[in-house]
């Protein structure tokens, strides 16, 4: 058996175990609900055109032409009663000549607009993003990257500790190279994380299309498209380090403490992007720092602040950083996997000679 078939077996086991895992299922469902909720729900709640009760047939035609849901009633009193009973959102009465709009507690914008002639509006910056969206989109990217990266990163670490704590790792290492173990785990974790965010992306896009938010979609679509490769590289960049912190811990109980630096590496960019998303110089900087780029660059693309070549450059920087960090992570993983007595520090594991002697022995 060669290394690649060993990797396949290892990755297949990890996938099988994780797909049955409750954390994975719950987080996937939760994200999907959020994606559905944030796209479909506002349309349902803000819910379509107002219903209007009206007696005057000329007004009824005007209102109907404006796309409102019109109920024709016998007289103004019946129209008012319909509003009081909650059968209509508004009523239009013409008792005194000029039409008046009746409503319970909220002036129905669309009814008023239908009856008035608006002045011509010329937008000077027609592409400017709705301020509400401008707030939610960075938050959305940041939270998806943060949670997915943290969840799947921690799962890689946990899977390593489990093998170390149960000592099954000795049986594994006696038959397959440690490199195969590491790659198998990272591939499985990466695949699941990617599947999860791809699913979220698809649901979000479908949700926007379904609710006729075509304008929003054309704004956010390219950012989502870029987010996927950024996410993938960003996740793989940290995956080997997650495996390394797993190997540094001797027991699952140690993992929380040992993995704290990694959690910060994921958490700090999250808060920076969420709180500083309207600070352009800071966001530009963040979009080139490999740890925050997966979130910051798609946000800048969304707000239209990034030129077309920028995501490519940023992705290039990330790929280089990923190569370095994967190398460090793999070395620390090898150096600490078989150390079971006492606490192993990151530095000691990095300098470990035993693993290299073993590798020589088996080559």
């Amino acid at each position, binding site marked *: *058996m060669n290394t690649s078939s*060993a990797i396949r*077996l*290892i990755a297949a*086991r990890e996938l099988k*175990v994780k797909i049955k895992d409750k954390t994975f299922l719950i987080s996937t469902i939760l994200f999907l609900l959020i994606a559905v909720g944030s796209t479909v729900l506002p349309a349902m709640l803000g819910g379509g055109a107002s219903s209007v009760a009206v007696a005057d047939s000329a007004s009824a035609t005007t209102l109907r032409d404006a796309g409102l849901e019109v109920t024709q009633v016998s007289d103004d009193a019946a129209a008012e009663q319909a509003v009081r009973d909650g059968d209509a959102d508004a009523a239009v009465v013409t008792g005194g000549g000029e039409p008046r709009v009746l409503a319970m507690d909220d002036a129905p914008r669309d009814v008023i607009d239908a009856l008035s002639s608006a002045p011509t509006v010329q937008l000077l910056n027609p592409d400017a993003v709705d301020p509400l969206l401008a707030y939610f989109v960075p938050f959305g990217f940041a939270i998806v990257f943060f949670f997915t990266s943290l969840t799947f990163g921690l799962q890689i670490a946990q899977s390593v500790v*489990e*093998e170390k*704590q*149960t*000592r*099954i790792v*000795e*049986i*594994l*290492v*006696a*038959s*397959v*190279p440690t490199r195969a173990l590491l790659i198998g785990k990272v591939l499985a974790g990466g695949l699941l994380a990617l599947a999860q965010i791809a699913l979220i992306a698809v649901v979000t896009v479908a949700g926007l299309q379904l609710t006729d938010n075509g304008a929003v979609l054309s704004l956010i679509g390219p950012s989502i498209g870029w987010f996927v490769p950024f996410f993938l590289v960003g996740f793989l960049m940290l995956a080997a380090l997650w495996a390394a912190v797993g190997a540094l811990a001797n027991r699952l109980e140690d993992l929380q403490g040992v993995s704290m630096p990694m959690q910060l590496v994921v958490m700090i960019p999250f808060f920076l992007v969420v709180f500083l998303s309207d600070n352009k110089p800071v966001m530009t900087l963040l979009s080139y720092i490999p740890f925050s780029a997966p979130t910051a660059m798609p946000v800048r693309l969304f707000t239209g602040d990034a030129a077309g070549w920028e995501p490519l450059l940023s992705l290039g920087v990330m790929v280089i950083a990923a190569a370095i960090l994967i190398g460090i992570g793999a070395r620390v993983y090898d150096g600490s996997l*078989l150390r*079971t007595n006492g606490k192993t520090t990151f530095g000691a594991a990095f300098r470990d000679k*035993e693993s290299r*002697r*073993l590798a*020589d*022995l*088996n080559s």
Partner: protein
Amino acid sequence: MTKVLHLEAINRSFGDRQVLRDVTFDVTAGRMTGFVGANGAGKTTSMRIILGVLAPDSGEVTWQGNRLTREDRRRFGYMPEERGLYPKMTVRDQLVYLGRLHGLTVQAVNRNVDDLLEWLSLGERANDPVENLSLGNQQRAQIAAALVHDPDVLVLDEPFSGLDPMAVDTVVSVLRERTHRGVPVLFSSHQLDVVERLCDDLVIIAGGAIKAAGSKDSLRDSYAQRRFALVVAGDAGWVRDQPGVTLVDLDGPRAVFDLADGADDQVVLRAALERGAVRSFGPVTPSLAEIFREVAR
């Protein structure tokens, strides 16, 4: 070339502490080799070096005359000292997984798993997660994990610890069946009575150095002093005055004594018969525990 696993002058230190010194011994095909020594004598370290989980500072391990490769080791079965399988995976799933990792096809591994589960009386628990099994059954599953890929060599660190006598017999029969197929088996144990009953060859390690190695019988012979036990009708105290006799133990009518080279045991027997009835007389073979105490001293 006979199938021999050979350790040649293995040295290993942890920091300043040398835990193995020129460790050299053989594990021969078709024989059970018992590996005995006190805690910390170097048994586990030696086994980890055989399996490539630890590197020696110097020396090498060979199999059929060639230096061990990972391909060879993949055909080894190993039971580590500290036990563990995936707690949440079912017994069957993890045996299949480990068998596949050791290079078996799906068909071969399924066949082996069925056989092993039946042999180790684990069939009913096959689809339970390991964490739900009793400790004894977990231990059986661990043994199955070492055997699932029909290994060419078996290295078992304390395979009998934590097993009840029935389970010991089950495991022994499984291991015997492997040695009959020509597999060399190396196992360590604290339970000297079990080792004595089971092993064909014996390796005794103390303080990181091999103190004795060879077949159980030859070790017995070489460590057997000319020791005899005599039971007479009356008091046996007179034996101490016989020429060449060194009294080891005296308990009323029963005497255990060593005879000097050249002294004749039949002379002592005749002297006993002259004094009255003799209930029994014969040589005493040393137990493994006695040899071990003698050697490891």
